């Protein structure tokens, strides 16, 4: 059946709502068995893209295949090979966790026995056994997210879409979710995950596609993207305002960022071995007292910032 090495291929996707064009030619490819993170700020078009790739939404131009099936012409076949965990939990609130799983399993056309067995397995894997026979509306946010993901895995589809799977989870639940996602990847599932958490993309994904305003603005591995923004940074803090002012004279305009409030200076360094010691030597000979110093490797936050030109909402907790 599948021949291409890409499990998901989208070319030149365009989508408008009325006059508002929200996707302006998105192309992306996900190699089978790998994970792609679709990274972008609020309103970038992540959910729209995922909904198109998972057959839920039509589009104006472009083409999409999932496991070589065309999402428009062969939507049913696509639905047979994908699992979707949308941005808001899509479980039946009045049914119990177990009933949700069994029902969805049977809607994937598993046999009754198979759906039962698989439901039990997932309840165990996702730590939901104790809550299995309670209506989903009594679940906490984290439990509901886990159930939601479990439901999309019921027929072990080879391709999974996860739209912001960890948004709104506390740190513990987020790490639990990461473990689940990593295990999925180990089993060879192709995963497309959207996230606003750069750390998440960095941690989990093989490749990252950054979108903003409906366009792909960068793509590559986390390492590629970081090296694009490049330079390491040296951050210095000083004991007093006098030291801080003197230091500004010493480094003479080479700062990347400065803050008289925090008495801090950030500068780019090209060579960590030479530049840092030179700066420190210069400061020492001017008798300037440094209270702390740190060298930062570029983070995806920096990538994001320099690419989108937007200040990313700081990740809470």
């Amino acid at each position, binding site marked *: 059946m599948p021949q291409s090495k890409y499990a998901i291929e989208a070319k030149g996707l365009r989508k408008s709502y009325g006059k508002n064009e929200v996707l302006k030619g998105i192309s992306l490819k996900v190699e089978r068995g790998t994970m792609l993170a679709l990274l972008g700020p609020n309103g970038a078009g992540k959910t729209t893209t995922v909904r198109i790739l*998972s057959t839920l939404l039509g589009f104006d131009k472009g083409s999409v295949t999932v496991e070589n099936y065309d999402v428009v012409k062969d939507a*049913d076949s696509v639905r047979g090979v994908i699992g979707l965990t949308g941005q808001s939990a899509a479980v039946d609130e009045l049914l119990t966790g177990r009933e949700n799983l069994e029902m969805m399993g*049977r809607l*994937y056309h*598993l046999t009754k026995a198979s759906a039962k067995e698989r439901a039990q397995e997932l309840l165990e894997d996702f730590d939901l056994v104790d809550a299995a026979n309670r209506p989903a509306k009594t679940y906490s946010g984290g439990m509901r997210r886990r159930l939601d993901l479990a439901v999309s895995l019921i027929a*072990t589809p080879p391709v999974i879409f996860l739209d912001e799977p960890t948004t709104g989870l506390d740190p513990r639940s987020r790490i639990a979710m990461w473990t689940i996602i990593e295990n999925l990847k180990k089993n060879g599932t192709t995963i497309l995950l959207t996230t606003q958490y750069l750390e998440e993309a960095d941690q989990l994904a093989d490749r990252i596609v950054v979108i903003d305003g409906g366009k792909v603005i960068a793509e590559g591995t986390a390492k590629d993207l970081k090296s694009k923004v490049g330079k390491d940074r040296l951050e210095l803090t000083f004991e007093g305002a006098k030291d801080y002012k003197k230091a500004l004279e010493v480094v003479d305009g080479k700062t990347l960022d400065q803050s008289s409030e925090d008495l801090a200076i950030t500068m780019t360094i090209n060579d960590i071995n030479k530049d840092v010691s030179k700066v420190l030597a210069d400061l020492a000979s001017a008798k300037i007292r440094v209270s702390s110093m740190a060298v930062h490797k570029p983070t995806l936050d920096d990538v994001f910032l320099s690419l989108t030109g937007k200040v990313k909402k700081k990740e809470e907790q």
Partner: protein
Amino acid sequence: MAELKFVNRPKPLLAVTDSLLMIKRSSTHITRKMDELLGTFFQPIMFLVLFAAVFGGAIGGTLPHGVSYLNFLMAGIIVQTVAFGSTTTALAVAGDLQQGIIDRFRSLPMSNLAVLNGHVISDVFRNAISTIVMIITGFVIGFRTDASFLDWLAIAGLLLLFTIAFSWVAAIMGVLAKSIEGVQWLTFIIIFPLTFASSAFVPAESMVDGLRTFAENQPITHFVEAVRALMIGAPIGNHGWIAVAWGIGTLVVAMPIAAWLFKRKTTQ
């Protein structure tokens, strides 16, 4: 991990399975919502007893052939309860559309219409229970009938047709409504006048001219009159056929419209 086994059946049969699963889902919903259970069991009893007590005195003596008001009321109150009950379908459809669950269903390789089938058919079950509760209550407080087994079958058939037809109309309202309040309002302005401006509670002859013409010719009256005739052993006239024609006509029109609207709403 357990090996997965898939059902291997032709597509139309799978679509039937999908609908059965959705019927099970919607029926489970009804049993888990306290207000719906109360609505199913107690509301019909309350209506029946109240109407019989309040209108019985005023209207009782004026009925033709010395029919008692309770015997007259029975058909009307059943049809009215079923009509009002169809709001449940509208609410359930609207509720699904507002929640993420509809995306889940649509990302599955299942038949789209199964969701609507589920709500409509579970509504039939619920209405059947309400109707039986009312008939039993009716017998307890003095309802009497000479209807034969065949008459009862015909009554059941008519009510079934009425329920299904009305629920599909309600499904349309559920898809069209923008909110739950919208559903309540929509169904209210359609169902309330239809049931009260009919011969459900008082004979149409007692109404003023314009209203009477409307009441005598609208579908609910034909259903009520047909069921009533079968219950009290009066001549059924043309009401039976006209009711059946209305029922089938409504179904033929409402089903595809509901399906089309539902599909459109969920694909954009």
